[in-house]
């Protein structure tokens, strides 16, 4: 995917500038950095998504952890990153449609939607038809959406470890629903840190892994 990989230091520099704009609440500057200094200079959208936005979000988490920023600042910064993701999506070129439908959703109680959004965009640009349900999706809503959209794959995201039980419940509910063959994949920070047994078909968190795994699960040779 990463055709025009920017040199590491250039990407790191851009990330630092982005983070400053993000914490200053300057959406315009954040977007300008990504589009003009990133996309227009030949950096690939996946590289910017991962190397700038996701890294910046992790940095925001660390800063809260060190109590250098408040929850309010964290929310503002995340809002900017969500908006930036949307603009990067606009600037990206989409692979020809592969005709497969994926439902991407955060589990119930999970308010961190950025990782799920990042994965949803990655799948979309890779040619999947993505239905993104967003943060804090109840099991009822998830079942309704599965029934309405008839997806070829469901991807569930959980970031906070205290949402692991919700993830377990969601997987179980889907398994007990009408389509027992529906492939389910799980991902997010919560999955990587735990040893919880999940009845999912696959687990992936890195966007490239998610796309690769999703293609395998729906039967497209990557």
């Amino acid at each position, binding site marked *: 995917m990463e055709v025009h990989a920017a040199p590491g230091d250039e990407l790191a520099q851009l990330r630092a500038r982005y983070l400053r704009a993000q914490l200053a609440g300057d959406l315009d500057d954040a977007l300008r950095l990504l589009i003009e200094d990133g996309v227009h200079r030949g950096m690939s959208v996946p590289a910017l998504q991962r190397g700038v936005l996701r890294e910046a979000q992790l940095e925001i988490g660390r800063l*809260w*952890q*060190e*109590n250098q920023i*408040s*929850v*309010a600042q964290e*929310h503002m910064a*995340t*809002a900017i990153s*969500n*908006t930036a*993701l*949307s603009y990067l*999506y*606009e600037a990206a*070129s*989409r692979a*020809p449609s592969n005709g497969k439908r994926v439902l991407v959703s955060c589990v119930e109680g999970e*308010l961190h*939607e950025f990782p799920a*959004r990042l994965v949803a*965009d990655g799948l*979309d640009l890779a040619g999947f038809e993505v239905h*993104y349900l*967003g*943060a*804090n999706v109840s099991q009822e809503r998830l079942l309704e959406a599965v029934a309405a959209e008839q997806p070829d794959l469901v991807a569930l995201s959980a970031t*906070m*470890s*205290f949402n692991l039980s919700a993830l377990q419940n969601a997987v179980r509910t889907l398994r007990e629903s009408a389509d027992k063959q529906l492939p389910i994949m799980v991902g997010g920070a919560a999955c990587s840190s735990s040893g919880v047994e999940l009845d999912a078909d696959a687990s992936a968190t890195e966007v490239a892994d998610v796309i690769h795994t999703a293609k395998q699960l729906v039967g497209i040779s990557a």
Partner: protein
Amino acid sequence: MTLSFSEECSRELSLVCDSDGTILQLDKRAERILGVQVGSELRACMVAGSEDKLKTMLSEARNTPLRNWELALLAFGKPATLSFCARAAEPHKLELHALVLPDNYGETVEHLSSTMSQMLGLHREISRQKKELETKTHELLKTNRELDESNRGVLSLHAELADKAESLRHSAEVRGRVVANVSHEFRTPLHTILGLSRLLLDASDGPLTDEQQKQIRFIRSSAEELSALVNDMLDLSKAESGKMLLRVNPFGLHDMISSLRGQLRPLVPLAPNGTDVELVFEEPSTDATLETDQGKVAQVLRNLVSNALKFTERGEVRVSVGVEGDTAHFAVSDTGIGIGAADYAHIFEEFGQVDSPLQAKVKGTGLGLPLSRKLAELLGGTLQVESELGKGSTFRLSIPACHPEAHEIKQLEARPLDPEKAPVLVVEDDRKTIFIYEKYLANAGFQVVPARNIDHARNLLRQLRPAAIVLDIMLDGETSWNFLAEVKRDPRTHEIPVLVVTVTNKEQKARALGADEFWLKPVDQDRLLRKLRALSRPGSSAKVLVIDDDDRARYLMRKYLEKEPYSLLEAATGPEGITCAREQRPDVILLDFLLRDMTAFDVLDDLKGDPRTRGIPVVIITSHMLDATERQRLAAETEVILSKASLSRELAIHRIRDALQKAGVSKWSTPGVEH
């Protein structure tokens, strides 16, 4: 636990813990909010994943007092953010004060976040659609490029085809010209053979023995066959080059069949013991009137009947006619040898006769059927064959009862005069030409009143006063010239400008220059004598001058006139002929069209330019076609005569306008009507 009102409402709490987070002291609010007691671990209150931040706070607070340290704890059983202040109180003890950040603050932020998330979803949706549109546009552009490319391919293919068609057309034209010229070249010696054999058979130079007569008859019949072949070839090449003129006239079906019957009866072979083949003409059930070229229809039927008779040894040849709606059907059936289906197409090819024993016996040019089919097409119809080997054949000619052109001209004739437009009387027997006039003149503010023959023109002239007359010098006799003279003599019509238009052929040109007759070789003896009798004063011995560089032609002429009361003068060259004419003042001059030293036109010019010879009637005799340079020269010399071949729209209108202006007629004047 009893709480005061302030304790009950407060969102603040205070507690003391050791450096590991074990609670040592706490106030009632802390008990209430966090649900903990002395000895509880603060760690147990933390929201999963945020334990590290508690640890950091506890260790940092030992050295420095901390303010606004946010921790995620379970407050009132739900995750909530608490802002802590912490400092070291006594060794290994920490004093903590915390504020539970308002729930609704967090909820509002979550709500805003999810709203924004939805809006960003919309933004993505729009982006995606934009991308799809771009992809589609891209695909369309690509398709467009591909179409462009294939279009270019098609265009070059077209150009190639046009080239091919052009070269085919060119070679067809060359072939046609060669055929036409060769045929004409054949004609001259053929005419000599036919003429001389005729003379011999007439025993004009003494009687022949029976054997000699038989031999001469063979010579003559061979020459006649060759002549028929040459004529068919000429017809075919004319039809193929589109030069064949149609003479469409109304005629009765019944009359045509009667006259055909008379013409074809002699073709039925006479077997020694009476004929085995009967030629039957079915009476047409109704006597319909057809309007097409009778001569061409008869030519096709003659061809078909003579073919049928050739290939039928016994039985009958039956000709039937019928009109069905707008179509006339003619069928010629025989009980002859028939044709295999595989040969149906073949027989319509030139020289495409089918091999058979009978075929070898009978004679034919091999051009009859191809010519017949061409004629059928010219008449707007078809010629089809149905046949079975050994049982006979039926040829069907289907043509429109009213030739399409005749149909159109009828409409043109029937339309009422438009008082806004000046009428132009067009005397023209070729319908196509009338339509060309109509097209050109209608745009220039005139209306064409067509007259297809001189009588028709005379009638029309009695009914209306045209702004001008366009007169085609027709091939059939003197009437056109007489009509011109009539118009010019009559005080009622002499002011009407007459525009003489004609095909630039040698005959018309010759006539315009003053030739009195124009004959195509072979010269028919009877016709020659009749003409001479008409020209010369009765009783006197007329002098006839023959100007021809062909010895054989002059010899033939001499033989023709030998027994007649005419004295023959001969000249082998143009100047010789002119001198002879001036000195001898012959009563008539027979002039070969193509002399070696000068053309007939030059001779004519000289004769007509000299008062001594101007009055002498000149008959032009030819077997040669006009070539392009001759035509060009003629066109250059011509003033009053327009060539149809070069009759462009502009030229026609220009000339006619000039003529009208000379006569003081404007196209806006309302025509007077006279009776």
